[in-house]
């Protein structure tokens, strides 16, 4: 009267995940359909369809495209790493010593709300080369989320961690390394995740407004030369590499937390 439980159990599982991927595929197809629909509509300026954009992508010579992609990634990478290398220790210092907190925290609080994009004109004036200017922008985009989350992470540590660490007579440094840092990691990585997103936003802004080369510049040039399908190619590339970099951060985050969960 009832199918043998185990066979239907396994197939149910597989059937469920099959359904999930069908719906996901449907979702992507629906997105492309909507895009095609919008493109088909006779706007004053015709919007390129997905097909047109795909063709535009194929017409791009791979080598200069790869160069642009590498350039943007390099700019984000350098700016982001400097922001992490400066932001995390600074955040910890601000968390640790009251003297430094009183000195630096008000400054961070004043500068943080300024949207990093608003720094671009000043950056163009100050930095000698457009390369250093764009790296400053990606650094700036990443710096505030990182330093802010590190400070939050530090103050967020449950006081009992500190007491527990101290009561065991752990030396200041060992206590930091084994108690404070591990417990701050999740919040720091949340900051890194936000930071890399904003870094990407900044490299695109920098390349569109003042720098040469990179995917942002490619997108802007597509606009300038009225090759509109290429605009969407640029946007897709920015999306893909933006996603990849935040994916990398997530993997690093899991790896680190696995290390500390040992």
């Amino acid at each position: 009267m009832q199918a043998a439980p185990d066979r239907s159990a396994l197939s149910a599982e597989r059937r469920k995940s099959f359904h999930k991927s069908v719906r996901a595929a449907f979702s992507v197809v629906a997105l492309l359909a909507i895009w095609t629909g919008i493109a088909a509509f006779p706007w004053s300026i015709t919007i390129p369809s997905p097909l047109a954009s795909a063709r535009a992508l194929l017409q791009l010579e791979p080598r200069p495209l790869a160069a642009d992609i590498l350039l943007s990634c390099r700019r984000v990478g350098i700016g982001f790493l400097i922001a992490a290398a400066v932001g995390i220790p600074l955040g910890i210092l601000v968390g640790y010593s009251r003297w430094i907190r009183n000195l630096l925290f008000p400054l961070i609080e004043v500068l943080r709300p300024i949207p990093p994009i608003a720094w671009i004109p000043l950056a163009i004036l100050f930095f000698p080369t457009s390369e250093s200017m764009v790296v400053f922008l990606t650094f700036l985009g990443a710096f505030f989320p990182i330093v802010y989350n590190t400070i939050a992470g530090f103050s967020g540590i449950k006081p009992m961690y500190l007491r527990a660490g101290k009561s065991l007579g752990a030396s200041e440094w060992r206590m930091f390394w084994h108690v404070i840092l591990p417990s701050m990691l999740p919040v720091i990585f949340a900051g890194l995740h936000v930071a890399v997103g904003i870094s990407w936003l900044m490299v695109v802004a920098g390349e569109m407004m003042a720098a040469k080369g990179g995917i942002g510049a490619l997108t802007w040039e597509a606009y300038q030369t009225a090759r509109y399908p290429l605009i969407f190619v640029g946007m897709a590339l920015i999306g893909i590499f933006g996603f990849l970099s935040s994916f990398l951060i997530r993997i690093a985050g899991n790896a680190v937390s696995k290390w500390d969960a040992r």
Partner: protein
Amino acid sequence: MRRQIAACALALMAAISSAGGAIGQEAVSTKNAKVVLGSLPLAPTWGVTIVTKAELWKKYLPNVELERIEAMSGMPIVNNILAGKIDIAYMGDTPALILGSRRDVAESKFVAATEGDDGGSSVAFVKNDSPIQSITELNGKRVSISFGAYTHRFAEMVSDAEKIKFQYVGQSPEVGLTSLQAGRVDAFITWPPYGELAVHRGFGRVLMNGVKMNFSSVRCVVVSKAFAEKHPDILIGWLRAELDAHRLLRERPRAAAQLIFDDWKKFEVPLEVISAGFTYKVFPDDIGPKWRKVMTDSAEFLLKQGLIKQAPDFATFIDDSYLKRAAAIPSRLDLSKYPN
């Protein structure tokens, strides 16, 4: 130590050039230095397009490493010069005057006129289906211009003459182009080839240009005074190449047009738009009285309109000494390489 070497090289150079360049094929400067050139990718500054595309400068400055900063309009170039990031720049007369008027920030020099005309390259465009037929109908309408460009001066001149007032929409020319296409602005006053691109892409038409008003404008080469004093030899070498470009533009117009067409390939500017320019442009080899008058009159006008706070000190600002020394050097342009 480096300063001494530069000094004696300078002396040596002065000796050679003053001796009337007897040794002919000798490079104007063998110095290996980095020179930053500021220019607009799409602008009626054809001299720089030819000099860079055909690499005419390499014959005179073999060891110079050229770095280019491009901006879509004159003012960002002015800012970069004021910020000490550009050595040689090409721009319209108005940005040059604004640069000259900022003597308080940085000293600069107008060292050559590269191209001039009497209104052909200052044009107002409207959309094809726009009801506007004459410039006076643009009163109070939205007009896209590039702040601080010579076409901004043209717009001010027109509104002054016709006693009308435009509602300026300040944006870079390529954004202006799409604003016209999207109907966000009623007119687009700009320099070639942007307006012509609107016509070529089938959504724009000419409303009027500066010829009727005899609106003369000139494009020029400006340098920061610091650069001119530190590397006069490099500047002279460059101006020598600029004069070669002028010869090419005058004697081989078709070959020159092809060079410009190739440089602007990605923007798909048709060849005939470039060739049309030859009918009304001149490429002066010296800063003649006509162009000096254009500069002084424009300065006066800009002061009156409040676009600049003080006039440049023309005595030191316009300095054609380098141009004269460049003209003295025999040209190494090989015209046979450019069949017409």
